[in-house]
């Protein structure tokens, strides 16, 4: 028997009070854990997905929406832009590289992105199996899509119009899987990549009608090789959705956005600027949630104080007995502090586990968004501070009860009894 065991015995002797106090503290700490995990991973993911993209160009509208749809694929595109205007922009001396993108289709909520081979190269993507697309309707699946759809190289599927689940299927043209990307923990994991031409032909009403009349061999209707670099070749006016631009030099950061925004029908938005604006906006919400968590922790600290103080009233005779059998005042002080610390330590461990569990539930409900790519069971160094923070609450909640125990007059208590 020792003080640890004795403290533990006292705590387990009041399971309801102990359990409720631990749970209340754990709730507050779970909120902080979730916020820490999301903040840390979300920011890293966002920065990782936008790495190498200096400017995003699309139809006029909300710049944040343009970034969210064009870079992170989590919002609706602002509209289409004419390809000839995009090609004109690509010839500007300030532009080092331009990646065209055509959006608008999905497969069970996973977005189908029409682009060229520069897009997977931008993220240094590697193929897990197969090869990149070279003809229309060939697709490469992101790792997450491959896992969820269970498709492999050679399988075929129909895409749906729009970018959300439940929209009508394009039953004229089937996409054929020619490759699967390795998991990189970035936006590509959740995308289906194909050529811009595939998106055009899918939406081409004439092409769809033709495909409906002759279903014998759909792929052969578009036999030309697709553009693997630069823009696709077309004889009719075509639209794109988004352009991802890399600057040639720092001067471009000053001149190019202004040039596009004032001199064309398109809109330019900088991912770094828009994301810092977004984090600023999110920061208000995060601060509010952190405030709420601190209030919950404060309440639970008060709860622990009340529980210890009340139990002390009931245990004054116990404490006197302990003194009578040789316990020093310091040992009684330590006994109460240990109870407070054990309560809060348990609360911290439960809170951290609850936080990770909450996050894994949130992730399982949002598999196709940015949240879906977060890792719920990564433990951060900052979580150790949660334990320290909880222990500080434990010490503060125990101070008054511990000193009351320290002051226990043995003779007075024993005489009273």
């Amino acid at each position, binding site marked *: *028997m*020792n003080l640890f065991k*004795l403290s533990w*015995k*006292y705590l*387990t*002797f009041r399971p309801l009070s102990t359990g409720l106090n631990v749970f209340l503290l754990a709730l507050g700490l779970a909120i902080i854990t979730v916020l820490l995990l999301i903040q840390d991973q979300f920011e890293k993911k966002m920065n990782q997905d936008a790495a190498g993209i200096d400017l995003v160009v699309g139809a006029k509208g909300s710049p944040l929406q343009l970034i969210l749809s064009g870079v992170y694929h989590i919002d609706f595109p602002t509209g289409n832009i004419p390809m000839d205007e995009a090609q004109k922009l690509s010839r500007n001396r300030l532009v080092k590289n331009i990646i065209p993108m055509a959006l608008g289709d999905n497969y069970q909520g996973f977005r189908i992105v029409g682009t060229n081979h520069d897009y997977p190269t931008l993220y240094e993507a590697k193929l897990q199996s197969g090869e990149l697309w070279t003809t229309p309707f060939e697709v490469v699946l992101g790792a997450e899509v491959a896992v969820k759809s269970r498709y492999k190289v050679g399988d075929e599927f129909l895409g749906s119009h729009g970018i959300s689940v439940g929209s009508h299927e394009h039953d004229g043209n089937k996409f054929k899987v020619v490759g699967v990307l390795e998991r990189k923990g970035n936006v590509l994991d959740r995308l289906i990549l194909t050529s811009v031409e595939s998106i055009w032909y899918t939406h081409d009403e004439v092409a769809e009608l033709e495909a409906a009349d002759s279903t014998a061999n759909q792929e052969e209707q578009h036999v030309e090789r697709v553009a693997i670099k630069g823009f696709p070749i077309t004889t009719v006016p075509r639209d794109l959705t988004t352009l991802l631009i890399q600057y040639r030099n720092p001067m471009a950061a000053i001149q190019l956005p202004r040039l596009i925004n004032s001199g064309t029908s398109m809109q330019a938005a900088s991912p770094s600027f828009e994301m810092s604006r977004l984090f600023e906006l999110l920061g208000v919400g995060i601060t509010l949630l952190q405030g709420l968590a601190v209030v919950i922790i404060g309440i639970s600290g008060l709860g622990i104080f009340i529980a210890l103080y009340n139990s002390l009233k009931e245990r004054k*005779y*116990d404490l006197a*007995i*302990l*003194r*009578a*059998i*040789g*316990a*020093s*005042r*310091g*040992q009684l002080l330590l006994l109460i502090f240990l109870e407070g610390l054990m309560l809060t330590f348990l609360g911290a461990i439960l809170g951290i586990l609850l936080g990770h569990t909450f996050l894994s539930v949130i992730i399982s409900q949002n598999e196709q968004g940015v949240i879906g790519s977060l890792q719920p069971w990564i433990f951060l160094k900052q979580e150790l501070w949660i334990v320290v923070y909880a222990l500080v609450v434990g010490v503060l909640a125990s101070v008054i009860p511990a000193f009351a125990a320290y002051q226990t007059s*043995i*003779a007075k208590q*024993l*005489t009273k*009894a």
Partner: protein
Amino acid sequence: MLFESRGLKYSHPGQQTLAFPDITLQPGESMLVLGKSGSGKTTMLNLLAGLLKPDAGEVKLDGQNLASMKGQELDLFRGKEIGIVFQSPHLLAALNVKENLQMAHFFGKKKGKEIEQLLTELGLGSKAKSSVLTLSEGEAQRVSIARALANNPKLILADEPTSSLDDENTEKVLELLKTQAAKIGAALIIVTHDRRVRAHVPNFVEVKAA
């Protein structure tokens, strides 16, 4: 001389000073402290146990003066050398029978009697792992005696140990205290107003209210 208290005086705040009779005891000897309710018997026991500091006089156990000890030294000495049996057994409800006795070993920092052996000697062998809440009054009082004996103390102080017991249990408890004290060579002082005890312990002193 194993135990000796001389010239003890104590005054509760705002009350008259109480003067207590002297006691000297050899190993294995017993003494009753008799007195009416409110005469100061429990105060005397608290002075003898070092739980209260006397205004005058001294309490010596095995040559050491309790009044000259302070804080932790006195707490540890009490844990090691003095076993106290209270009027109500008041065992720690959060612990089982064995753990209640282990607390005496822990705080007394003394490896005293083997707990199982002690419990068997006191007829509680089968109750070692029982919750103290399940014990009868007589059993609970025997456990509190076992707790007082756990460190083989040199002085056993018992405060009204039989006041709530029937005749049969009173007999048992008194026999137990006397035989165990004799066995370990401890001095035994029983504070009581229970006249039934006189038949078992002939030596007595009387505390009279001022």
